[in-house]
């Protein structure tokens, strides 16, 4: 019969997933990677549907249709919504793992061995906590919940105690799987811990948190593989887990912070106004017309986009600026800080959506040496990643964080809504430098009027 073929299908699926990720290493082969990934998934699904244990396809078919109907609109969201979409899909992935774990528990007890139960407990713990944590992250990214960190006294003690309880319940279940009354409590503890974990995390830490949740969702799938003794699940889960881990480490390094600091540090909560003599400093403000004049005379302009550009949906206006400057033989490059935006790579996707060629998007290490030759560094909606205090001010909360050396450009132009410091209330000394011009206003409106000035000027 067909059954002996199924393991081979699974093996081919596992190989496809590895190839998919390998081909993602460069833009030219990346799309091929997605296609082989789809192929791998199709093989895995077909292989599973062929299994003789399946007695009815009715509910599977219903779920396939339902999932497709919900999945397609989720893929059509605008690129600005990608961070919240990603958080939501982490929630779905984790929930699937947790639900399967729950079903398996009630199917298999009391005939479940200790090891399988340990893996099952891990699957359910990670699944449920990632589910609520991802929903919370989604709420914060979608602005349904307040984005600023919410802290209260003894928060870390409460969180750790709750986590300890959940782990203890899991261990107890692994030792005595027949304790069925404990299972719902265990699941509830995991759900609540997921919520509490995200409450103290602010918007700017989202890139790390979303990567971490990515990793957890993968590990939950891998744990499911141990429960079902399925190597394909273990491999795919491990790949996802390691991807999330790498991204989290990159994000942490880019902020010069540790995991524990991000999860338990509630960044930006208790920062007293650093630099009390702030009122004495003055910033120079400029109009869109001034900005256009300076840009027209430049040879090299480096644009530094940040979350503010995404919020204002300014990427298409930025593209117009790019076009008009490029046409006037001004070289334009984009400097992308690893944690700019709300998830890893957020800015790249937005700018690619606006049809800016990707070879103009430069990573921090590559572009920093070019700032001294730049005539203009144009900061659009980025703040902390440009603050020179990170290099020299030991008292600054962001001291040691790698930054874009915007201050080394000949002229620095900052498009910003007001002088209000960004998240964490850290004063940015860049704004008070002699060579810095502040252009106040909504990023989209300001870039739009600069473009209009440039277009008008070139016609005369």
């Amino acid at each position, binding site marked *: 019969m067909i059954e002996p073929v199924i393991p081979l299908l699974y093996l081919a699926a596992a190989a496809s997933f590895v190839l998919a990720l390998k081909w993602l290493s460069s833009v030219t082969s990346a799309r091929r990677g997605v296609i082989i990934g789809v192929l791998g*998934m199709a093989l895995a699904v077909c292989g599973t549907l062929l299994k003789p244990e399946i007695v009815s396809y009715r*509910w599977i078919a219903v779920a396939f249709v339902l999932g497709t109907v919900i999945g397609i609109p989720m893929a059509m969201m605008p690129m600005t919504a990608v961070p919240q979409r990603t958080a939501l899909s982490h929630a779905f992935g984790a929930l699937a793992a947790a639900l399967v774990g729950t079903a398996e528990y009630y199917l298999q007890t009391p005939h479940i061995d200790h090891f399988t139960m340990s893996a099952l407990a891990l699957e359910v713990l990670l699944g449920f906590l990632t589910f609520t944590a991802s929903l919370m992250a989604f709420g914060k990214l979608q602005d349904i919940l307040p984005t600023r960190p919410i802290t209260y006294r003894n928060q870390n003690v409460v969180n750790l105690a709750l986590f300890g309880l959940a782990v203890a319940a899991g261990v107890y279940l692994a030792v005595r799987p027949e304790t069925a009354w404990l299972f719902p409590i265990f699941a509830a503890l995991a759900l609540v811990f997921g919520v509490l974990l995200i409450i103290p995390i602010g918007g700017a830490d989202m890139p790390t948190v979303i990567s971490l949740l990515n990793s957890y969702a993968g590990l939950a799938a891998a744990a499911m593989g141990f429960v079902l003794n399925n190597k394909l699940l*273990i491999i795919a889960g491990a790949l996802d887990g390691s*991807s999330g881990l790498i991204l989290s480490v990159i994000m942490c390094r880019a902020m010069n912070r540790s995991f524990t600091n991000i999860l338990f540090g509630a960044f930006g909560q208790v920062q007293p106004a650093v630099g009390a003599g702030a009122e004495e400093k003055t910033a120079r403000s400029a109009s869109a017309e001034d900005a256009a004049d300076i840009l027209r005379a430049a040879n090299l302009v480096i644009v530094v986009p940040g979350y503010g550009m995404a919020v204002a949906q300014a990427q298409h206006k930025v593209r117009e600026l790019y076009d008009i400057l490029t046409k006037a033989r001004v070289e334009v490059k984009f400097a992308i800080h690893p944690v700019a935006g709300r998830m890893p790579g957020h800015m790249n996707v937005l700018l690619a959506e606006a049809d800016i060629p990707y070879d103009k998007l430069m990573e921090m290490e590559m572009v920093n040496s070019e700032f001294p030759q730049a005539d203009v560094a144009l900061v659009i909606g980025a703040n902390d990643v440009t603050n020179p205090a990170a290099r020299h001010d030991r008292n600054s909360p962001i001291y040691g964080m790698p930054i874009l050396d915007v201050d080394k450009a000949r002229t620095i132009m900052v498009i910003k809504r007001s002088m209000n410091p960004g998240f964490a209330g850290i004063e940015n000394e860049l704004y008070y430098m002699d060579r810095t011009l502040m252009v106040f206003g909504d990023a989209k409106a300001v870039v739009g009027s600069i473009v209009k000035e440039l277009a008008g000027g070139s016609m005369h």
Partner: protein
Amino acid sequence: MSQDLELSLYVFVLATFLGLEVIRRVSPLLHTPLMSLTNAISAIAVVGSILVAGEQKTVLSTVLGTLAVTCSMINIVGGYLITYRMLRMFRKSGKERS
């Protein structure tokens, strides 16, 4: 330790190392598509979900399984599609989008 378990642990550890090596090479340019692609791949939980939903052993397990298949399917369809959409947007200067 049973042989099955030992083998599973080997697979897990080696797949993790392989994942770390392969993913380390992904350019930061593509970190967002990377995350949506790995998200779609981890929807492999669909395998376990289909089994639970299709075995129809108890009402509870069938309901939970059907929900799980739905969740996984959302991620499979949504994850691959949006990754493909994103990758189509990247173009080099002087070239049209393909």
